[in-house]
């Protein structure tokens, strides 16, 4: 008897877990709202940092070094007496620019290579696909480091390095979809109507092959922020005194025992950015999935 009682609610799970896919949407709305709010503030910080922090991110105050968060400096000050809040706000521009530029390279290059691989015939496709496979075989961080070792550290090499290492996944998605789309009836029909090849690709294949790319790009943006923070933490990105987040974390690490706010608070900005982008991306993906079903 206990067995049946045990089994019943568990049996009910089977049916409710199917609904669970749609139900969390209502719950996640709070999360989505918070993510949207944070990203709005972030956008303001990127476009007009003075609105949130009118001070100079590089202004040192030797009489007020390593002071804990209070009403005057509500993120505290660093080892040179610079206001950490001002630096975090102004650093958003650096960090987000790097991530956006890197993602643009990854998406642009990925779409181009994916289309190329998907449209060409066996040998070229095989070569491209294997090269992409090989690129994915390197751990992301190490591949980016190889690139930076060759061209030297700095903002531009950081952007290109992150763009290159995150490119293969976009290329792979586009390649797969291109191969599907080019076998579709409407494409074959367009071919029989004698549509020129460039127009065929631009008008019919491309729009249908890049469906999931915007969502991937939003989630990839978060990952780019993470990789950028890691690499510049290691000193491979923008150099001090630039208030880029990873560089701030790297500087703060040496003062962790006396001033946790120098590290943890800029770090939370990174985490909040990545969480918000991921929440946004997943929500968007779920909506797309819902529409396709």
């Amino acid at each position: 008897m206990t067995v049946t009682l045990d089994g019943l609610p568990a049996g009910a799970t089977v049916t409710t877990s199917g609904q669970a896919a749609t139900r969390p949407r209502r719950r996640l709305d709070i999360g989505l709202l918070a993510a949207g709010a944070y990203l709005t503030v972030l956008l303001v910080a990127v476009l007009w940092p003075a609105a949130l922090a009118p001070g100079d991110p590089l202004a040192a105050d030797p009489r007020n070094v390593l002071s804990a968060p209070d009403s005057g400096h509500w993120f505290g000050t660093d080892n040179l007496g610079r206001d950490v809040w001002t630096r975090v706000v102004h650093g958003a521009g650096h960090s987000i620019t790097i991530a956006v530029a890197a993602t643009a390279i990854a998406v642009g290059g990925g779409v181009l290579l994916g289309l190329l691989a998907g449209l060409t015939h066996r040998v070229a496709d095989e070569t491209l696909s294997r090269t992409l496979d090989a690129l994915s075989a390197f751990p992301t961080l190490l591949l980016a480091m190889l690139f930076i070792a060759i061209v030297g550290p700095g903002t531009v090499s950081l952007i290109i390095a992150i763009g290159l290492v995150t490119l293969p996944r976009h290329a792979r998605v586009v390649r797969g979809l291109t191969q599907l789309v080019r076998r579709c009836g409407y494409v074959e029909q367009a071919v029989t109507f004698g549509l020129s090849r460039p127009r065929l690709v631009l008008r019919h294949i491309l729009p249908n092959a890049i469906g999931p790319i915007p969502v991937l790009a939003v989630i990839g943006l978060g990952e780019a922020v993470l990789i950028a923070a890691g690499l510049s933490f290691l000193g491979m990105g923008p150099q001090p005194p630039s208030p880029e987040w990873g560089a701030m974390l790297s500087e703060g690490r040496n003062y962790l025992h006396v001033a946790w706010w120098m590290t943890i608070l800029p770090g939370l900005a990174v985490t909040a950015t990545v969480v918000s982008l991921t929440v946004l991306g997943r929500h968007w993906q779920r909506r797309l999935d819902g529409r396709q079903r």
Partner: protein
Amino acid sequence: MGRVQLRAVLRRVAAGVVVLWVAATAAYLAVLAAPGDTVDTLIGDGADTPQIRAAIIAEWGLDRPALLQYLDYLWRLAHGDLGRSYLLQRPVAEVIGEQLAPTLILSLAAATLGVLLALIIAAVTAGDRRPWLRRLSSGTELLLVSTPPFLIGLVLLSVLSFRLGLFPVAGDAGPRALVLPAVTLALPIAGLLAQVLRDGVDRALDEPFVLTARARGLREGVVLARHALRHALLPAVTLAGWLFGTLLGGAVIIEQVFGRPGLGQVTLTAVTGKDMPVVLAVVTLSAAVYVVVNTAADLVSLLVDPRLRRS
């Protein structure tokens, strides 16, 4: 194993070898394509004397046709000759070999911890039995996956070492020094793996065989462990390559945070000192291990899941 299976196995192995070859070539081309003189690139910040220049030209065969250089490079690589570090004036294999152990220990500890944590989390939170717990854990997982691993390390360091004095701040003396780095490296892994495993368990719970198991009167725990979790492990196995990459890339940063010796330290010194042979070796080796791990994972799924063999 029948002939069909053997052919499937051989195909995976061949694909792995091809990827490995392309990866080695890509790394090699990256160095050749570097702006400036190849000899300068290879020396990096190392001592630059006419003797060393002559040695580099001889070792890399830079005075010979490009194709021969390339074949020579592959030949040396295939024989485990990773070249020479001009910055440290020592064979690369020696440098890496010395520092392999600390990184291996850290990675193994982190991988074990991460996988165990993920299994426990997935088993406890799968299904609809405890919705609040599930919500809590998926929120935590999102947080763990979205936080730079080194920040997790810095937070742990700040609270547990500096505030509470529970663990040493730096170094690799004794197992106590291993705890924080291993936990730091394990948490993001556990976060992602738990998501994948729970999804898998959820999907398995919808399958008819779970209904059959329940109808046979098996307890829910047994259904979960013996039927659902085992089913969910398969897609998780394909993450083995990703796991490895995360461990190695993570170790580079985490070793830096906790002042531990290891491959991370070697890599970082090599990158900042432009010690190309060392960087090249680390990158190529990591790709090689990734390919081996991935191929092994493919073969394991092939052996474990009869459905894959048939297709």
